[in-house]
């Protein structure tokens, strides 16, 4: 059982604050007044809604269909009526809206027909497909669709399967309680992952501040007679980061721009294993998860919460102190203040912390960087945060990339130790999103350029083809006329030969030639006539549309602001200038 553990560089030891919430068993949160279920809860494509307002749904019924392979389905967390499919504020630092299905529970919590699957008889593809259909995603926080990680690499042999029960962030204890109370189901879930990936070893990493969880997991592993190793890793933030845990347990370091799969390692959260088992053994999709409610509350505790529960309602169960002034989703290191308390619990929500100045005293103002290097010492990815900070601050994004800003996992160790209280991670996030935006813009510009060049090429080709065609038609008609003329001439000459010999036969020929030269004009006039008809049709349609528009005045012009009115006037003025140049019909010539 003894195993040589490795170390990752850096890391910090913030006060764990876990004992407040891990003493009480998991409680079932009551049904909330309504559920707001965002459709986009995992990395990848946004699921398409398959219900509409007024529909009655059952618990576990599909409401959002996975869009593409990297995407996971979304299900109704309880039975009830769909109130609307509309934009609602998301638990996201931006405070922006996204499409959500709002359900009013009917109180019966009636499940849709579901039952255990015959796992032993299922092909691996079918298992993956079922996990996708059940909406199983990584519950550690990143919410990557789990089925996407369950295909072993073809080139690299699968060495280790890492199960992440480290839970290194302060305050959070939901994985701890899950392992204590539901260890057997977690281990069975790990069994599924093992069957799909066929690794040589399965390692379950748990931080050594959770002895009960480790004991429960060991007991479950022994009871099920599985060859999994439960390993206690030293408590050090961020030991629960996937790359850090892989490093500690296997000694392998995942290089930049590579994934752990390329090294034959795959990592899953314990809660993910649990939901996978529920999906296979009970046919239950992911409609709830464990959430730690802690911080500035009377009764910190872990709750089993339906996805879509408004955070405010969940927080009330733990009776927050009156001076609570916000909700942090996630831990104090990587979490963020949610925009308001109506935002729903999503699959990535592992913890809610009631925020108050008492629990989290406001940071003193930022001071200049003194280049002490404390941030570099604690960076678990061996980066130089002070350099990245300097260049992010100066908006010199090329330099930040030279210092490997994209290897930063935003764990917050550097901000935690900074003696000048610089919010380093915020600078890195700013720089990263700016670089991404530029990349997007550049790709869009390149795409536009290629399409523009292609269009020009096509226009030229079409023009050439048209000219060629016209010339051909003209030539054909000329030839026809010439032949006719020749025939006529022949007839004439025949007649002349019989009647009046010595008649000049060159005259009709020259006439034919003359006709042939005028012919292109003739064909052009026929083309023009066609165009004329088209033009008339367009004019008629214009008149019709105009009448229609006049009959029904535009709705949006009543309440325009001054700026909008000005913009409209601008456009009108531009149109007036450009209109003569673009009279319909002429454009096609």
């Amino acid at each position, binding site marked *: 059982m003894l195993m040589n553990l490795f170390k990752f560089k850096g890391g910090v030891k913030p006060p764990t604050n876990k004992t407040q919430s891990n003493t009480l068993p998991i409680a079932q949160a009551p049904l909330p007044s309504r559920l707001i279920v965002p459709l986009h809860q995992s990395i990848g494509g946004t699921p398409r809604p398959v219900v509409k307002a007024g529909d009655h749904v059952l618990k576990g019924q599909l409401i959002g269909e996975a869009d593409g392979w990297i995407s996971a389905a979304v299900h109704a967390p309880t039975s009830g009526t769909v109130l609307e499919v509309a934009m609602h504020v998301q638990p996201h630092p931006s405070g922006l809206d*996204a499409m959500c299905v709002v359900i009013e529970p009917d109180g019966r919590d009636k499940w849709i027909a579901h039952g255990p699957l015959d796992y032993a008889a299922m092909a691996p593809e079918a298992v993956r497909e079922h996990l996708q259909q059940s909406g199983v995603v990584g519950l550690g926080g990143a919410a990557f669709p789990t089925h996407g990680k369950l295909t072993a690499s073809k080139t690299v042999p699968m060495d280790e399967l890492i199960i992440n029960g480290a839970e290194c962030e302060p305050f959070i204890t939901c994985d701890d309680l899950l392992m204590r109370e539901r260890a057997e189901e977690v281990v069975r879930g790990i069994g599924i992952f093992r069957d799909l990936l066929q690794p040589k070893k399965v390692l379950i990493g748990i931080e050594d501040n959770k002895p009960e969880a480790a004991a429960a997991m060991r007991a479950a592993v022994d009871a099920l007679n599985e060859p999994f190793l439960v390993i206690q890793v030293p408590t050090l933030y961020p030991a629960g980061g996937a790359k850090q845990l892989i490093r500690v347990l296997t000694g392998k370091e995942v290089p930049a721009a590579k994934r752990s799969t390329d090294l034959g390692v795959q990592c899953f959260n314990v809660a993910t294993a649990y939901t996978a088992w529920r999906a296979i053994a009970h046919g239950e999709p992911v409609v709830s998860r464990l959430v730690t409610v802690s911080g500035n509350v009377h009764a910190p505790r872990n709750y089993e919460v339906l996805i879509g529960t408004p955070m405010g309602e969940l927080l009330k169960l733990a009776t927050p102190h009156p001076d609570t002034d916000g909700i942090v989703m996630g831990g104090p290191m990587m979490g963020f203040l949610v925009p308001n308390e109506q935002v729903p619990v999503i699959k990535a929500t592992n913890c809610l912390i009631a925020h108050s100045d008492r629990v989290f005293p406001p940071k003193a103002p930022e001071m200049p960087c003194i280049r002490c290097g404390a941030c570099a010492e604690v960076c678990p990815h061996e980066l130089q945060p002070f350099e990245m900070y300097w260049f992010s601050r100066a908006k010199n994004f090329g330099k930040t990339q030279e210092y490997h800003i994209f290897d930063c996992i935003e764990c917050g160790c550097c901000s935690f130790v900074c003696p000048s209280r610089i919010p380093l991670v915020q600078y890195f996030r700013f720089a990263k999103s700016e670089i991404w935006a530029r990349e997007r813009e550049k790709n869009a510009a390149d795409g536009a350029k290629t399409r523009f060049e292609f269009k020009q090429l096509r226009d030229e080709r079409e023009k050439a083809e048209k000219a060629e065609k016209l010339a051909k038609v003209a030539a054909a008609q000329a030839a026809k006329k010439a032949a006719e003329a020749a025939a006529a001439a022949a007839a004439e000459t025949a007649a002349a030969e019989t009647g009046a010999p010595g008649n000049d036969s060159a005259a009709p020929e020259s006439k034919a030639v003359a006709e042939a030269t005028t012919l292109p004009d003739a064909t052009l006039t026929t083309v023009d006539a066609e165009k004329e008809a088209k033009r008339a049709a*367009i004019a008629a349609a214009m008149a019709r549309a105009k009448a229609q528009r006049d009959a029904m005045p535009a709705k949006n012009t009543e309440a325009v602001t001054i700026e909008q009115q000005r913009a409209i006037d601008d*456009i009108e003025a531009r149109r007036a200038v450009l209109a003569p140049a*673009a009279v319909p019909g002429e*454009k096609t010539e």
Partner: protein
Amino acid sequence: MDILLAIAIMALGAVVLGAALGFASVKFKVEGDPLVEKIEGILPQTQCGQCGFPGCKPYAEAIAKGEVDINLCPPGGMEGVQKLADLLGREVKELEAEEKPKQVAIIDENTCIGCTLCIQACPVDAIVGAAKQMHTIIAPLCTGCELCLPPCPVECIRMEAIGENLDNWKWKYPVIEIKTEMRKAAPMMKAA
């Protein structure tokens, strides 16, 4: 005599060097202008013609020749002007036209008569449709150049600003918060 010698030697030198340079310029002639490509890389490729040139490349060529100013491209914004100024060592100038937020064209599909005029006007092939069939804009490909607005005979195309959404949202630059004392002072000043 000395002065003549000096003139002769200098003239000889000038002739030799001039001949060498002339020979080199013929022998080592290079086609193409890398500067145009660099300038074009900075331009936003909307192909909107707001600079007065038919597309981004002609404008880039004109800039490279030094015929026009670098501040004629509203979609590129002040950032684009800044980059061009850095590249060419010219002075930064205010944009000629007003900088606009990014837009996308939207066709009112009930009014569209399927005349295909906008399809021909679109420089980047971002409109799909066929004669007498409804047209629509492929929003991700639209550069917001407004070139489809004037040809539309029934005025069914409108421009809409692209708002912030979860896909294009950016983290803001961390700003040092204004202290509470100052925040309190502001309304008092207003009252006074």
